[in-house]
């Protein structure tokens, strides 16, 4: 990375660091603090990625990053109040729900032990209580030489979500995190999540990203996940933010032997969304699915960057990303598959399909395969096109009007991604949200207590 890959407004973020770091250090654990100095040094070198950075070729961060934000790098009293009454009562969805406000875990009880010894709560608190787990996993996966934003997060983040599922434990409930941004000021927030799933265990989590007030917001969030041997882990991220919200997520999932993981990025609405999803297949026989759906309109932009590393033999990975673009919106997909020399017996697939509803939309799609083993099955495919007139006519010839026929087609197209989500109640909920979104209605969970779109 040369100097040319970083933007000139990088200095602003170094300024935020200088201004807040003493306070941040004071509230954080020594272990988390021990990573800050080298992280800010790396960030200073790499900076905020510009479009000269190969991974950000199709996403211009300038409109959201070249802007002065209030920096609330510590929780504020009013944030805490939000959490008091929170309860998500999505019908038939058995969840343990928690809320994250402006990147902070605002519940009075900092860490909760659920039945079976599962721990859920504040990242900050957990870094003090679960020292050994943090030493083993924290900042071990979130490291990339391609993206300065990950290092900016490591340098400055002080709170977020922590989940620990011990060995031999099946978490029956979906753990739901409602991640809201709400402020009367324009704020930049960076939270950090650490999820540890032990051996022979199972867990599904859902993150609902919402904004509750119309100010300009920017989020830069990092999530690290460790999935132990023979374990199953699913993450479902539902993004529903307003057009002045910028959201950058970096999710790193490390998998041990014979584990399964799925990542499902459902981007329904948001000004700028960039999801970076990294899958590390580190134990033989691991299987991963990386899926995504993006629905954009107006001047929105959604970009998914996926990177799958096959380090060891006999692992499989499958990427499926689909999107529908309307008005003058744009989107991008960059799917990297890297098969290391030892990873014989790899299967790795990738598919990206996009429907453009107008001539003014634009989709950039880029497969990126590097294969250094010889016994490998790999394939990739991408399509970008319009709604198929023949299919439309078929539906219309049965009496279904043009608008409804188009909706059915787009819904069917999107359902391909939704049907892979492992919890039936979430699938149904998402089908409804997608249908509402495609109809041009505001999509929100009718029974969600957070009336984000009203």
């Amino acid at each position, binding site marked *: 990375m040369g100097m040319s890959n970083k933007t000139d407004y990088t200095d602003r973020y170094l300024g935020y660091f200088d201004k807040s770091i003493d306070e941040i250090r004071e509230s954080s654990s020594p272990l988390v603090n021990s990573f800050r100095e080298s992280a800010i040094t790396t960030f200073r070198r790499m900076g905020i990625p510009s479009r000269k950075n190969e991974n950000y070729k199709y996403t211009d961060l300038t409109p959201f990053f070249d802007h002065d934000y209030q920096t609330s790098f510590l929780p504020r009293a009013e944030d805490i109040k939000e959490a008091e009454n929170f309860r998500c009562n999505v019908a038939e969805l058995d969840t343990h729900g928690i809320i994250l406000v402006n990147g902070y875990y605002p519940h009075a009880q900092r860490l909760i032990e659920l039945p079976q010894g599962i721990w859920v709560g504040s990242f900050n608190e957990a870094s003090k209580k679960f020292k050994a787990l943090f030493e083993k996993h924290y900042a071990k996966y979130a490291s990339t030489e391609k993206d300065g934003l990950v290092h900016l997060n490591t340098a400055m983040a002080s709170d977020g979500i922590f989940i620990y599922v011990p060995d031999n434990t099946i978490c029956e409930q979906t753990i739901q995190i409602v991640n809201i941004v709400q402020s009367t000021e324009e704020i930049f927030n960076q939270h950090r999540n650490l999820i540890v799933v032990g051996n022979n265990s199972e867990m599904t989590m859902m993150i609902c990203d919402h904004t509750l007030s119309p100010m300009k917001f920017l989020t830069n969030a990092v999530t690290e996940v460790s999935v132990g041997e023979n374990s199953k882990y699913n993450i479902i991220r539902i993004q529903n933010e307003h057009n002045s919200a910028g959201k950058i997520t970096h999710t790193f999932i490390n998998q041990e032997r014979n584990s399964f993981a799925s990542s499902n990025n459902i981007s329904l609405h948001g000004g700028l969304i960039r999801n970076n999803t990294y899958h590390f297949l580190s134990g033989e026989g691991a299987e991963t699915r990386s899926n995504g759906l993006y629905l954009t309109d107006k001047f929105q932009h959604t970009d998914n960057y996926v990177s799958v590393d096959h380090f060891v033999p006999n692992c499989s990975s499958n990427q499926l990303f689909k999107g529908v673009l309307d008005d003058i919106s744009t989107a991008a997909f960059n799917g990297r598959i890297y098969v290391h020399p030892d990873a014989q017996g790899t299967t790795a697939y990738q598919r990206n399909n996009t429907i453009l509803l107008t001539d003014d939309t634009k989709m950039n799609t880029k497969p990126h395969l590097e294969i250094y083993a010889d016994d490998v099955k790999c394939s990739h495919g991408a399509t970008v096109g319009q709604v198929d*007139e023949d299919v439309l006519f*078929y539906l219309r*010839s*049965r*009496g279904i009007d043009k608008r409804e026929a188009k909706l059915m*087609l787009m*819904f069917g197209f999107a*359902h391909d991604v939704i049907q892979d989500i492992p919890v039936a109640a979430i699938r149904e909920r998402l089908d409804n949200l997608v249908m509402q979104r495609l109809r041009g209605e505001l999509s929100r969970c009718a029974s969600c207590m957070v009336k984000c779109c009203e």
Partner: protein
Amino acid sequence: MLKINNLHATIGDKKILKGINLEVKEGEVHAIMGPNGSGKSTLASVLAGREFVKVTEGEIIFNGKNLLELSPEERSKEGIFLGFQYPIEIPGVSMVAFMKAAVNAHREYKGLEPLSASDFLKLMREKKELVEIDSKLANRSVNEGFSGGEKKKNEIFQMAMLEPKLSILDETDSGLDIDALRVVANGVNKLKRGDTSSIVITHYQRLLDYIVPDIVHVLYDGRIVKTSGKGLALELEIKGYDWIKKEVDQN
């Protein structure tokens, strides 16, 4: 029921239909035969409302209405059904969702309430039995992964669900083995009522052994060049189309 007067149509710059005249009365079954490229499928497309075919002259009156002014969906709701030569696969859209939307669109047009979920499923069940289609097909995405025969049976199932006044079956027999052909033809025959009509478009006599036409037309070079009773189909089966071509070309 249907009256086509002097119909001319083009696809791009090419004149395909060059003055079709045809009248179909209630209760009648018409067969339209003809060599490849004569305009049979174009005629079906015009009747169903495909936009890539441009009508340059003539008119089509269906039960007193000017058909050419109606959208494809309005034509369907008025009672026209096209059985496709190549039924379309629609991944992600279930047969149930598809048929529910279609049936309820037809009901709304008639001023009826939408069917309840249970009444709708009951209707699906009855019609599946009527046309002998495999229950499992109805639980899948529309035509996705169906065999050629299954797709054609699925067309007849849709026809049963929508109870059209005029059904146009475009080469429904193409690519069918004899068993599938029998199922398709039986379905059509069971759905026939005194007040419904059919136009069966086919290249071969085979289908007409099962769906017996009242009137047979031969379409050649965009015109109906011969109209006769069902015996004409047999004659064509034996003698082919050359003698008709010769006859026409001489005049």
